[in-house]
């Protein structure tokens, strides 16, 4: 039902402060990223040129515009280092998201089938690790996975291996870290849709002769697709740009794009290339971002 005009006007005033804030600190900065991605590096402060100086007069600004170029983007496309970094980011994100779905779904499903009272407890239990620091959780895994760490000592004690296995600086360690960090983001949207589902639907399917696995595939899973979509996007998008986990847990021979960007920025001090890398990353993620935004808005409108 619409037509609740009375509340609309004060609510519109409420929008002013957050609107201004987000335009200033979220939207406008992208303009700067775009502008600097078209500039050249320079040994100066700030380390790029041209620098727009509005006080320098019209001709100077025109000259500054003329100095902008697409060179950085050409570099990104031609240099294998960057192309591989993008490809690796996408591969890692797809693999990790699939793993997350595979591991998260049974957990969410188990939660949704708990008695109502226990569902709330399980929900808190899943959220609490999310509150504890991201960095700390990665660090906890370094403790476990290092050369003389707990995992190797257990494996040795059980005589499953004869020599310590190298876990750190491998893709396995990275995937463990990613799954561990993003698991709540996968579980919560899945749980939300599964818990909302009418139990009578599954019962009706069983009543009509479907064995349990068919009940799951023909009724439960298709109905949980909105949750699957939300969970997948919520994990996939940030994993593509992930920096900390690959940096601490994966080897340094093949980098993800987040690491490349970090390296260009902090080590090489090449701000323009870093900006260009960010712009390309943004373009790659634009479709999933828009999809995610649409999903969120539809969910809001359902309420």
């Amino acid at each position: 039902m619409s037509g609740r005009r009375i509340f609309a006007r004060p609510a519109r005033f409420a929008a002013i402060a957050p609107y201004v804030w987000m335009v200033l600190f979220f939207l406008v900065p992208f303009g700067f990223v775009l502008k600097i991605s078209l500039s050249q590096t320079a040994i100066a402060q700030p380390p790029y040129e041209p620098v727009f100086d509005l006080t320098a007069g019209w001709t100077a600004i025109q000259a500054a515009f003329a100095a902008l170029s697409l060179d950085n983007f050409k570099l990104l496309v031609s240099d294998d280092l960057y192309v591989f970094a993008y490809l690796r980011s996408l591969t890692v994100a797809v693999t990790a998201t699939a793993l997350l779905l595979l591991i998260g779904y049974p957990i969410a499903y188990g939660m949704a089938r708990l008695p109502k009272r226990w569902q709330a407890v399980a929900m808190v239990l899943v959220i609490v690790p999310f509150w504890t620091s991201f960095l700390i959780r990665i660090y906890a895994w370094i403790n476990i996975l290092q050369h003389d760490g707990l995992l190797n000592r257990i494996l040795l004690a059980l005589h499953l291996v004869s020599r310590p296995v190298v876990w750190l600086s491998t893709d396995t360690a990275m995937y463990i870290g990613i799954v561990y960090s993003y698991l709540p983001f996968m579980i919560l949207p899945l749980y939300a849709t599964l818990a909302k589902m009418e139990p009578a639907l599954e019962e009706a399917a069983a009543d009509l002769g479907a064995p349990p696995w068919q009940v799951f595939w023909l009724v439960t899973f298709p109905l949980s697709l909105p949750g699957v979509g939300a969970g997948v996007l919520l994990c996939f998008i940030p994993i593509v740009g992930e920096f900390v986990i690959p940096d601490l847990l994966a080897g340094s021979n093949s980098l993800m794009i987040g690491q490349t960007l970090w390296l260009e920025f902090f080590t090489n001090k090449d701000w323009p290339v870093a900006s260009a890398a960010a712009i390309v990353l943004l373009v790659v993620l634009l479709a999933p971002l828009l999809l995610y935004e649409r999903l969120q808005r539809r969910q809001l409108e359902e309420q």
Partner: protein
Amino acid sequence: MRKVSRLSRFNVASLALGLAFLYLPILILVIYSFNASRLVTVWGGWSLRWYYEFFDDRAMIEASWMSLRVAVASATIATLIGTLAAVALSRGERFRGRTLFSGMLYAPLVMPEVITGLSLLLLFVALNAERGFWTVTIAHTTLTMCFVAVVVQSRLGSLDRSLEEAAMDLGCAPARAFLSVTLPLIAPAIVAGWMLAFTLSLDDLVIASFTTGPGSATLPIRIYSEVRLGVKPEINAICTLVIALIAVVIVLASLASKLSSSRGESAAPL
């Protein structure tokens, strides 16, 4: 009501394994923070040695202090602005640029932090702002207010709109209806939003690395640079302290929201 019998053995197993996976690493970390041995993985008996070491480490203490101040300041600003955003989204009808508005609020939730961090840094450089406490606070506010908005908005959305109408029907002007009925009912969500913003800020490495200046490192930046050099038992102790702090904040906040929801109107200042 669901019946317990709906729970299959597979469900129980996946729940138990999932929770063990989530909790064991943290538990191990906490236990090892009390390890007397210098070798991180050899158990040398219980000791508080690494906690003393941390309290003697001036750089770490300074970084912790910086992180706490940034977390409190940014969480507070983010809660204020994020709640306003939530109200605008769920109570305002279509206004100009509403799609852009909701897009700007949802995008940072999933936007890779390297992009957000880099773009904010370039803004601060262009504005010639001195980098330090305030730039990190603004950057964290920008990120965390979106989380606050989502948390508060989902509570507002599930709130029965006829409650506000009933308040108006009984003589409240719209703003008053919001203050005396809506606000008390969404207070738990606002508190939860603040907590979330606080912990996210305390946790953030990437955005802080971009937006801070020399000499004002936050705790995650310090931990990160230590961890890159290898595992140090002192880090276990710091991490345990951070976990303890967050646990205290969660308990306090849930107590506060329980109190506020059980308090009658006669006791409320409004």
